[in-house]
């Protein structure tokens, strides 16, 4: 025995001095661990990069450049008949208002001694948003008595001028841009110096309606937010009761047979169906077959309800299962019927979990875009919908769809708008998820 091993050198191992093989194995251990860390780092870095990219592109959408000048609302142009009758005055279109604003701006610049080198009156007008005449016209038609007065008016600056103050448009890029000239930018800078132009928080971005492709500066999210809200109301009103009823049946009453098996398999499969397929369903059944109107929140709400149901059912069943059987047994032992034990005892105890699941389901539905594209939500909608229930049938947009339709427009200012809308969407989602977490923390109960 001892002879056999005496020929070969004895393998010496020491804890202090590891042999090469151990060192190799330890190195590979460290490498493996580093891969894991790197993977987590990659995931978190991607998240941070995404958030930074969206926020840095989008925060400027909440700021807007306004021009404030005194405007003389000349009677001769705005009310040629002179009788202050809004119906007669409505004949003056926005084209009639544009020169009034242009002249006001020009004369005020001269008065203030701001030089207009290389900016002809046409270019000057182009610095004011095309939306401004319409705004002034609405103001005048609503208050006919202000015609003839000189009022300080606050008007949107055009998208390119606004971009200059936000750093999107520079003197170099203006050289190559047919929509704006360096001279206009120089004038804008001078006007800002004189206090005629300033950039501040833009409530209209959150409350105002969408605007056409030529006036990104006036585009707002009001209709989209309202549309999303309406859809969430529909989803909540349908998905919560149906989901809870279905879960109660499946968890508490369902016998084990073919029918309930089919339902169970169905629910888990529905959760994995691509969202766009629900859009096809909505188009084929709700719009083409049932004849509901396109772009209506009711259709969007129905489609999103079907999508959210599996989420709510899965969450509800989990929280019903978490209620210990002793509660049911105690209720039954005191003479309650099975139905009473469920509705009076199990369901209230499961409620926090159900609500949490519902909020998470709603948050998912709020961010969903693809099915809404198919039911016509991409349409350009400027009118606010009526109050529910009639408003549920009016055309609207939705927050995520508004993001998409803004990315499809040519003007680069819409990139900023789309990112800003995404920020709004993310703020809603984060607050809903925080609410869910808080509910869970507050009411969570360990049995």
């Amino acid at each position, binding site marked *: 025995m001892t002879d056999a091993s005496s020929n070969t050198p004895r393998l010496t191992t020491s804890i202090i001095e590891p042999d090469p093989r151990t060192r190799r194995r330890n190195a590979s*251990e460290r490498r493996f661990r580093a891969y*894991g860390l790197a993977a987590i780092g990659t995931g978190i870095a991607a998240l941070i990069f995404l958030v930074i990219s969206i926020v840095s592109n989008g925060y400027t959408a909440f700021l807007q450049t306004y021009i404030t000048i005194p405007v003389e609302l000349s009677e001769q142009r705005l009310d040629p008949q002179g009788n202050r009758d809004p119906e007669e005055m409505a004949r003056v279109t926005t084209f009639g208002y544009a020169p009034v604003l242009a002249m006001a701006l020009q004369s005020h610049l001269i008065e203030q001694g701001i030089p207009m080198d290389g900016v002809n009156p046409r270019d000057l007008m182009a610095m004011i948003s095309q939306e401004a005449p319409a705004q002034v016209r609405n103001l005048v038609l609503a208050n006919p008595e202000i015609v003839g007065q000189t009022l300080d008016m606050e008007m949107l600056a055009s998208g390119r001028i606004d971009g200059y103050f936000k750093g999107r448009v520079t003197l170099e890029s203006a050289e190559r841009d047919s929509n704006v000239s360096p001279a206009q930018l120089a004038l804008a800078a001078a006007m800002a110096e004189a206090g005629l132009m300033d950039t501040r928080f833009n409530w209209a971005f959150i409350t105002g309606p969408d605007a056409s492709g030529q006036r990104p500066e006036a585009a707002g999210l009001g209709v989209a937010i309202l549309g999303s809200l309406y859809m969430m109301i529909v989803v909540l009103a349908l998905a919560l009761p149906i989901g809870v009823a279905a879960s109660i049946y499946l968890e508490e009453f369902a016998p084990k047979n073919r029918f309930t098996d089919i339902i169970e398999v169905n629910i888990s499969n529905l959760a994995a169906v691509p969202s*766009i397929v629900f*859009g*096809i369903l909505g188009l084929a*059944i709700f719009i083409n077959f049932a004849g509901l109107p396109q772009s209506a929140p009711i259709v969007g709400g129905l489609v999103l309800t079907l999508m959210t*149901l599996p989420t709510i059912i899965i969450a509800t069943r989990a929280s019903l299962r978490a209620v210990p059987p002793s509660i049911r047994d105690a209720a039954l032992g005191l003479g309650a019927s099975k139905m009473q034990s469920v509705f009076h005892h199990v369901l209230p105890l499961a409620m926090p979990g159900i609500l949490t699941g519902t909020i998470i389901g709603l948050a998912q539905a709020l961010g969903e*875009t693809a099915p809404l594209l198919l039911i016509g939500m991409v349409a350009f909608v400027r009118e606010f919908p009526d109050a529910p229930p009639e408003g549920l049938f009016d055309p609207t947009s939705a927050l995520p769809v508004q993001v998409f339709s803004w990315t499809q427009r040519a003007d680069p200012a819409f990139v900023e708008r789309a990112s800003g809308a995404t920020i709004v969407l993310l703020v809603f989602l984060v607050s809903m998820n925080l609410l869910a977490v808080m509910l869970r923390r507050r009411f969570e109960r360990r049995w």
Partner: protein
Amino acid sequence: MPLIWIIAIVLALGAVGYMLGRQRAMASAGGDIRRLHSLPVYYGTNVFLFSVVPALLVLCVWLMVQPSVIQSRVTEMIPESAATSAGELSLIMTDVRRVADGLDRAVGQGALTADEANNLRAEETNIRESLGAIGVALGSDVTPEVLSAAQRYRSLSSAGNLAMASAIIALSALGFAYAYLRTTRDFRARNTVEKAIMAILILASSIAVLTTVGIVLSMILETADFFELYDWRQFFFGTEWIPSFEGGSELGLLPLLWGTLYITIVALVVSVPVGLFAAIYLAEYAGPKTRSIAKPLIEVLAGIPTIVYGLFALITVGPMLRDYFAEPMGFGTSSSSVMTAGLVMGIMLIPFVSSLSDDIINAVPQSLRDGSYGLGATHSETIRQVILPAALPGIVGAILLAASRAIGETMIVVMGAGAAARLSLNPFEAMTTVTVKIVGQLTGDTDFSSPEALVAFALGLTLFVLTLGLNVLALYIVRKYREQYE
């Protein structure tokens, strides 16, 4: 009578029924609750349910059936010479509805009296102009046929609405009376109410089945229409995708399928290693503190809506890949590409892979680890040679689920992958997917009798079958190969 009023009346009847039913029960027991079979609440609820539920169910059915009945009755009035095809007929019917709506509005605004609206003659008045004056724009002049059809439409629908209102309210009252008269001391109200609630519960749970049936039926019917207009062999084996709404389109599935698979592969190449290593680290190495921070952060990625990823691809990742990789290396100048969409989708899928794998790795029993350590294996050797093989079926299942997500994903590819259908290997080139084309063919005004629109349903069915197949396969693998531990 507006719908909302009918519903309100039915609900009011129900509420009154609740009160009266309860009262009657109490009265029949002489005010002594112990002599009743059920609690008083159940007697009230019983009357409420009988007056409300049947009425509302019939209302739903009526609302669904009435428009199609009216439609078919009015369609008979349109002479065959005016509408030679189904498409033309539907256009005419749209006109009829608009004229009818316009007349309704004119009557509502007082521009016309009800009699005038019914006796208008297209030969005598210019309907288009008079409706235009009250804000109803019509595309073309109104022909006498359309006008008379519209008048018929109006009279039918107002008659229908009246019949509906009276039928529903009568039904509600009938249910009320029936339940009310049955309310006596010995009536088993609780059992009746519980049976009704049970029926509602069963109905709610079958909605999931109904949805699936709806999905499958709507797609199969339209797909069948499509294959009548377009050869199925050309659809499944065609290598060209050139839709043109004038006809003569090439609608081959292969380029779309290739784009879909290519992007899915890129997404999996990104997400599987990252997700898997993240899961291994979180499950095996990370302490509770790291885990409680890193796991939710990674899972936030799953909660971000896909439109946000799409925007990220469009404004950040796409231009970056183009400027730093594609253009310097001469691969192309497009910012939307397979790489863009795949990379962003890969980021989206990281949490899917990681949280599923995390659960599966955690489910491997500790005894296996202890045995491996006892034999002298290092931590990473244990993971590679013991834990991963034991968790493999679950991990494969997780990857298949992620792949099915990637195939069905829409917004990222719509905004990141481009719209050009081509069969190419260059990952920096714009390609398109099945989902992009579904959106493309169905968005906007589409004529649902043309193969160019109907192809979207065939694409949708393909997508549905593909993702369902992957899911079923994933579940099968997980179930079949799962190691059973005690």
